[in-house]
């Protein structure tokens, strides 16, 4: 019988700490798939943010480091400048990348560091127990917006992929989703594209993955996927916001 599906070899064969049904596991697979696809497992250095994403080194069979909260792009900058030929990526959540680490994100992108940023947007702080994230939707109830996010008090959910796209240093900025198999396949292509462009030295590549956090959303896993489709995507549209075709920035 022909084997058509297996664990990427860049992923360690072990149970994750993620909640059952969480799409972090899917996102990990997609990254590992890209690493395997380009055969760069032994050339890759991963940088994890703080939050549910922190345990990258427990799941990926690659060299990895844990960055301070929000600082992964700066840490990745240091690594990439020392190892310009290695593949360097960060894996960060929304609190990490779009709140405490906004400055590092924007300036790393603006310098056009030739790294890949994998951004998990699930509209909530997961590991700390469901507080408001910069991406929390208006009206969304979290443990720190018990009456729902109100723009007068809390501002608006931030759209990172759109915000980064106009920066000259950014080669690729896209938002994909993982709420069903079809979207996962599109997401897989996006992650591969980002790694490919890094290999080609095009500049910073950014993949935002809409993700469900049903535990902190207080819904069942399937309802979480439905919420991504019905509530997140209308505010966070899927698509490619920037894709350089050549090294026209040089």
């Amino acid at each position, binding site marked *: 019988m022909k084997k058509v599906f297996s664990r990427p070899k860049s992923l360690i064969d072990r149970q994750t700490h993620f909640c059952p049904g969480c799409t972090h596991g899917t996102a990990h697979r997609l990254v590992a798939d890209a690493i395997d696809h380009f055969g760069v497992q032994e050339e890759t250095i991963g940088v994890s943010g703080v939050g549910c994403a922190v345990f990258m080194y427990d799941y990926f069979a*690659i060299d990895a*480091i844990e960055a301070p909260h929000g600082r992964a792009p*700066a840490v990745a900058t240091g690594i990439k*400048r*020392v*190892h310009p030929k290695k593949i360097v990526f960060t894996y960060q959540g929304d609190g990490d990348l779009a709140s405490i680490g906004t400055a590092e994100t924007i300036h790393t992108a603006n310098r056009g560091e030739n790294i890949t940023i994998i951004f998990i947007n699930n509209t909530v702080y997961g590991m700390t127990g469901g507080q408001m994230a910069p991406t929390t939707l208006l009206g969304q109830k979290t443990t720190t917006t018990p009456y729902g996010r109100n723009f007068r008090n809390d501002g608006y959910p931030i759209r990172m992929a759109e915000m980064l796209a106009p920066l000259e240093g950014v080669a690729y900025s896209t938002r994909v989703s993982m709420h069903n198999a079809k979207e996962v396949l599109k997401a897989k292509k996006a992650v591969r594209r980002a790694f490919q462009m890094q290999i080609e030295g095009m500049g910073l590549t950014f993949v935002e993955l809409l993700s469900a956090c049903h535990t902190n959303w207080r819904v069942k896993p399937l309802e979480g996927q439905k919420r991504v489709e019905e509530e997140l995507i209308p505010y966070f549209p899927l698509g490619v916001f920037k894709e350089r075709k050549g090294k026209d920035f040089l």
Partner: protein
Amino acid sequence: MTEKILLKGNIALAKGAIAAGCRYYFGYPITPQNDIPEYLSAELPKVGGTFIQAESEIASINMVLGASASGVRAMTSSSGPGISLMQEGMSYMAGSELPGLVVNVMRVGPGLGGIAPTQGDYFQATRGGGHGDYFNIVLAPASVQEMFDLAIKAFELSDKYRNPAMILCDAILGQMKEPVVLEETKTVIPPLKPWALTGSKGRKPQFLKTLYLSDGEQEAHNLELKEKYDRLREEDVLFEAKGLDDSEIVIVAFGTVSRIAKTAIQMAKREGIRVGMIRPITIFPFPTEVIRETAKRIPRVLVVEMNTGQMLQDVKLSIESSVKLRFYGRPGGGIPTPEDMLREIRVMFNEEGF
């Protein structure tokens, strides 16, 4: 070849870093240390190095962290508020046992303060500075020559102990010019770092982290760090002692103040007062032993600093008191039990001399 040249302190320090094999600098402008990034932005590219003016001191220290994790000698420099912003990164570096050099050309504070010479960051430098149970290796130069020499020494110690090192100096040391001998140190090759992240070719993947959640894991890690600091206190204390044999008073002073003290000592000598001096060169690890032993013989100790009394505490801690003091502690989430404390009480109670 040993040729004497006239150099500004900040430049001597930058030259020392290059001589030590440092090829990576990340920093953000702040007075009175700007000569360091300006000089290195011109010189590092000539030796195949990298200079990045980061968006903040927070980014700077994290770039140092990333470069250091990749196996090279890396540094940053700043002052006052900038050093405060770096404390988070330095705590992570200490926790993940990463070397790296941070230069603090102090400015007065608290707050934005001014750029006049000061030693007000002694506590921040020598007490760890950031969150958690750790120390930095801290070197305090007192001349332009030492700005060069100690930059090299700081990288050596930082690599030896896999711990961040700091050069603590002030605007006088940074800005003044003095003759310096630059030894032929161009051939310094930084040590190989098998723990570094280089991609996992030919070996198992490895990682660097600071998060320890399993029971007892963090306590074990903190105790390992403590062993390192104990070893530092044992093996790498540096100080200068002068005129201790026949003096009636001992001055303890570091950095710029020790230079001024030398003049005061000469003036006192003309009045018939014999004064000696102990100048800590490493302020962590602090030269406790020499101060303790000297104070036994010469029980008059004058501490002079450009602050309201910070190193003073370390001098006080070094001098033996008549009160018996014992310590018991558990780091990293360990909680002392009543039984632990009772054991300590018994040990103390049964000690000789009570």
